[in-house]
């Protein structure tokens, strides 16, 4: 369709477009302004920030917050743990999910309907918090990384998506492999998986981001501070307003310490959010195709 000039619209259409675009513009501003505010505020001297808010008088700007956050050990421990948990979780979860989806995608697979029911039930019904917690305790997994990783590693929803994807692969590929006498494993790893990279990338990204952003399981299962992932460290600083002791302990006055704690929040937000935000443009095309995979039913 050719581009249409605004003046060529009817009066009703003009009103509609104006209202719509105004709302859209307000929405965009509601996102952009807070983001800019946080970035700028993270550089402002704590006293000025509390009394006047942000300022573009650069004599009031300081790197203090970044120095204090970046030199704090707990933040880096949190980062390291988050990276480890997210990578291990992604590998385990996507691996198991992709494997399971293969027999479930095959029409000839005996027991498919039975297993499907077993899996589907868990999407609607579950034991709930306490029974799961007691199980983790009985398995001796409390305060272990695996308590955070294993219970949610197999995702029925992702399995259905992978299964749908497998089914879209032309049957000729498989027939060709059968002629060659390739067994299941060879066919699966050498022929099927290589043509499934888009869906593998999508599932991996979903799982990585989900683990990176979660805090509940870590909060209930991991007690030692050496095992805490980033989000738990952030929770103490941002939600409970309890900055890591080393960040503010050199300040004597309570009021000043509170002001500093407030400032540290801004720098913490920037430092902790940067990795995913930087990663995002590189993976955008996968995310987009993943959204489509999630919108069709399995």
């Amino acid at each position, binding site marked *: *369709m050719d581009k*249409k000039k605004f003046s060529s619209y009817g009066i*009703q259409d003009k009103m*509609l*477009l104006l209202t*719509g675009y105004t709302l*859209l513009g307000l*929405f*965009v501003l*509601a*996102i*952009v302004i807070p*983001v800019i*505010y*946080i970035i700028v505020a993270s550089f402002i001297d704590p006293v000025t920030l509390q009394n006047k*808010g*942000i300022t573009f008088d650069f004599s009031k700007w300081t790197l203090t917050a970044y120095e204090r956050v970046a030199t704090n050990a707990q933040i880096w421990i949190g980062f390291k743990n988050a990276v480890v948990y997210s990578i291990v979780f992604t590998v385990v979860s996507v691996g198991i*999910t992709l*494997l*399971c989806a293969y*027999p*479930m995608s095959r029409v*000839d*697979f*005996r*027991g498919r309907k039975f*297993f499907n029911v077993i*899996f589907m039930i868990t999407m609607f019904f*579950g*034991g*709930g*918090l*306490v*029974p*799961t*917690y*007691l*199980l983790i305790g009985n398995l001796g997994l409390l305060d272990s990384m695996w308590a955070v990783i*294993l219970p949610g590693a*197999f995702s029925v929803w992702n*399995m259905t998506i992978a299964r749908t994807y497998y089914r879209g692969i032309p049957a000729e590929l498989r027939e060709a492999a059968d002629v060659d006498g390739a*067994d299941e494993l060879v066919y699966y790893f050498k022929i099927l998986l290589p043509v499934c990279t888009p869906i593998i990338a999508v599932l991996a990204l979903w799982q990585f981001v989900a683990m990176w*952003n979660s805090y*509940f399981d870590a909060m*209930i299962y991991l007690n030692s501070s050496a095992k805490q992932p980033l989000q738990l460290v*952030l929770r103490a600083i*941002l*939600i409970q307003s309890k900055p890591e002791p080393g960040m503010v302990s050199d300040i004597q006055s309570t009021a000043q310490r509170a002001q500093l704690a407030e400032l540290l*929040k*801004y720098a913490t*937000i920037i430092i902790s*959010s940067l990795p*995913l*935000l930087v990663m*995002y443009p590189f993976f955008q095309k996968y995310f987009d195709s993943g*959204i*489509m995979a*999630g*919108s069709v*039913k399995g």
Partner: protein
Amino acid sequence: MMSNSTSVSAGKQDSKTREFHNSLVYVKQHWQLYVIFLLPALALTLIFKYIPMGGILIAFQEYNPFKGILKSKWVGFSYFQRFLSSPDFLSYLANTLKLSVFGLLWGFPVPVILAFLLNRIQSKGIKKKIQLALYLPNFISVIVLCGIVKIFLSVTGPINLLLGSQINFMTMPGAWRTIYIASGIWQGAGWGSIMYTAALANASQDLKEAAYLDGANILQQIKVVEWPAIKDIVVIQFILQAGNIMSIGFEKAYALQTDLNLASSEIISTYVYKQGLISGNFSFSTAVGLFNTVINVILLLSVNKIVAKMNEGQGL
């Protein structure tokens, strides 16, 4: 007659054993499918999903961790009665339902509207930039989002600086739901619009041209071209979200709770957590959780049925 029916049932018997034999042969030939491909997922499911389902029994016991499930005393439905008859019950249930129903009613249309608006933008460059901004909040974590909300709404925060007031929003039960839902839209609406935008881009070119040539106005174009292109996805998304009404997330609600806004922020999932893992009332907490799950299953099935009726017999 008699002999005929016996021979039929014998035939059935026969075909059943043959079927069973065939299955055995199949499993033997394809053992890899079961052991290598299926088993890891099946094992995780049985251990981490089905064993806890058995653990639900403690909701009907006075569970004592030292005695275990086998030796704890059975108390029937008394924990359910205690919960259902407590004055808190209605308030937690209402908080949960209001939060998710209002969240759905306010939040669901926004991505659809955003997609319609984005679809009307003719300059590709501007559209890309707007989308970049709209998607951005999706990439911050729940904790960071709640941290931002708390900073902006704090007594000394920018909103109060702007208004010249000293309102502590986070301690107002009346403001809590609005904060939760609005911040959810702020974070998720842009990202939620992607699939609608993609579906709109795939709308039939012929229809578009025809509508254009007929001089249809925008509302008519939406009705004839754009709405049909996304209707199916909208319906599916609505079912999925409506079905999750009782399983509204713990993480964000808990992160936005303060002692003073509990009157509206205490929902069933946060209550289950506090009762179970903080106060150690294992049985009571499990009973409350089970109650929640059962309602959720009923909701899911009913929503699916309603949609199936509206959608000419096609549910999920």
